[in-house]
């Protein structure tokens, strides 16, 4: 396994507070790292930092891509990498698409820059990509504008844009949220195929634990701006080590087990960015803390050891 991206102790601070506080992970060639976690826990902010896309934030720590340090790299260097070696499928399709250009032009643009292809060849490639992501009648629809596409179709345009420049690192931020299950399966297959052919390192951020179960080799679980657990996918699902992970798994709606009735949620509310809780950030909502009321959980932030940040490893399973 070759490490393509190594992130160490990443911190991202906005005027409103520190959104990412101590994130470390490695992405390997040909492998998929799944990132799951609380809404607002810093998944997108971490990814945008890797891509060098933060403007009004202080980014600290280290991001090494193929041997090159990206924290502090020049904007033009980062732009060059983004166009060719790393790409990201953004969480928010409509505001990442330009309303005045056709979807075909937007896909072709990336390809032209990357492959130095002619306009005509790039347009052909755009049609192929639209077909690959399952847009019916791609040749007719390549000339449509984003507002003429449905939510899920726009999302697939974003995917096509990210894949067309044949990146070595692909960060997919909720790539299939707006997609129905059949198209979702098709997209996941497409990413997998490209990954196998070209050894792409994939980081898959998603709330859909079913998707994670299907594609991820390993999973990092985030809470309150930092990872709380990082382990092989099977282990995270079968024997979660952190009480937050446990709570997350218990909240999943399962139609195959009946359905109906209220869902189980983790009690309490997400931590504040401005005034994060002392000690373990999860302790105000943690069943272990509630049971044992161990003082250490409220006073000391647990270190991240052997893939787990918990003062009571093993108690959650």
């Amino acid at each position: 396994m070759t490490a393509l991206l190594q992130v160490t102790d990443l911190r991202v601070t906005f005027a409103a507070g520190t959104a990412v506080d101590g994130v470390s992970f490695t992405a390997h060639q040909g492998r998929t790292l799944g990132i799951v976690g609380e809404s607002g826990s810093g998944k997108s902010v971490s990814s945008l930092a890797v891509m060098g896309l933060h403007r009004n934030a202080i980014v600290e720590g280290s991001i090494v891509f193929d041997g090159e340090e990206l924290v502090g790299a020049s904007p033009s260097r980062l732009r060059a990498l983004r166009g060719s070696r790393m790409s990201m499928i953004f969480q928010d399709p409509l505001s990442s698409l330009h309303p005045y250009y056709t979807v075909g032009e937007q896909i072709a643009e990336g390809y032209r820059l990357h492959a130095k292809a002619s306009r005509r060849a790039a347009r052909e490639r755009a049609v192929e990509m639209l077909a690959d992501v399952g847009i019916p009648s791609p040749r007719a629809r390549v000339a449509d504008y984003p507002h003429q596409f449905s939510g899920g179709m726009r999302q697939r345009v974003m995917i096509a844009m990210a894949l067309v420049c044949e990146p070595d690192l692909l960060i997919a931020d909720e790539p299939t949220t707006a997609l129905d299950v059949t198209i979702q399966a098709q997209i996941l297959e497409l990413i997998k195929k490209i990954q196998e052919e070209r050894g792409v390192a994939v980081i898959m951020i998603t709330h859909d634990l079913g998707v994670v179960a299907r594609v991820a080799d390993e999973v990092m679980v985030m809470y309150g701006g930092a990872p709380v657990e990082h382990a092989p996918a099977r282990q995270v699902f079968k024997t979660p080590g952190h009480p937050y992970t446990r709570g997350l798994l218990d909240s999943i709606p399962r139609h195959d087990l009946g359905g109906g009735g209220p869902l189980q949620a983790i009690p309490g509310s997400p931590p504040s960015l401005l005034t994060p809780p002392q000690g373990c950030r999860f302790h105000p909502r943690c069943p272990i803390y509630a049971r044992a009321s161990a003082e250490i959980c409220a006073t000391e932030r647990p270190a991240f050891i052997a893939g787990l940040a918990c003062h009571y490893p093993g108690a959650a399973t």
Partner: protein
Amino acid sequence: MSPLLDVNDLRMTFRGGVRAVDGVSFSVRQGETLGLVGESGCGKSTTGRMIVRLLEPSGGQVTFDGRDITHVSRRRLLPLRGDLQMVFQDPFTSLNPRRTAAQIISGPRRLLDRDGTIALLERVGLGAEHADRYPHEFSGGQAQRIGIARALASRPKLVICDEPVSALDVSIQAQIVNLLRKLQEEEGLAYVFIAHDLSVVAHMCDRVAVMYLGRIVEIGDRKTVYADPAHPYTRALVSAVPLPDPDLEQDRERIVLLGDPPNPASPPAGCTFNPRCAKAQNICRQEAPVLRLVRGRQAACHFPD
């Protein structure tokens, strides 16, 4: 009692002849939730946008609370706005970038005071620290919850929820689903719940409607439809839901649909699902099936399972 919402033969044809919605009918009673599911691009959002009249239907009728609102003017619709709300699929673009969360939620008519706004923020899992932030300072799931809070601020009777929980982690998703259900019990709210996640729909909805290429192909009681789908498309959908268990996921048998989704500008003749249906016969290529009663629910198929 007459239903709160009645949609009759609703149609939308966009320029270029795209028949995005092609004769959709259903009704929703007070305090009820109807799930609307189906493939990307099948016309769910368009249906929702016609109901709240962000789009003017090209045909059919929308009756809300006893009033035909299909073609009423914006001005005459205004008094109804508070009763009929929508949560939009695309959270960021539906929030005005120049307004703070608090301003967005209380709206131009300042429905809520500061305390009321913060109380509502807390109900959707946010808090006072978020009240004065602008949309770009929120995460995807936070923006989505601001959209939900905005829709609930006017204490509506009906909310069209277009993928309202797709950007949320499962715990917050559970919290929002439970909140929506609680409001329903307390205030008799009704929902049209558009989602591609069939598991969430299972927890939210009393009835489900399955759409394919602008039409409803199956509609009925949620339990009946899930446990024993009659339309082959529904059956494929239900079989493809990913399960959060790597072992089950590996061994699962999924029904993979043949071919590509058709182009809504030139739908296939007969049953529009026929090119992708393993059971298609001659009649399926010639005659469009209509909804009829099949084992306790309505399905549009010549050869229901």
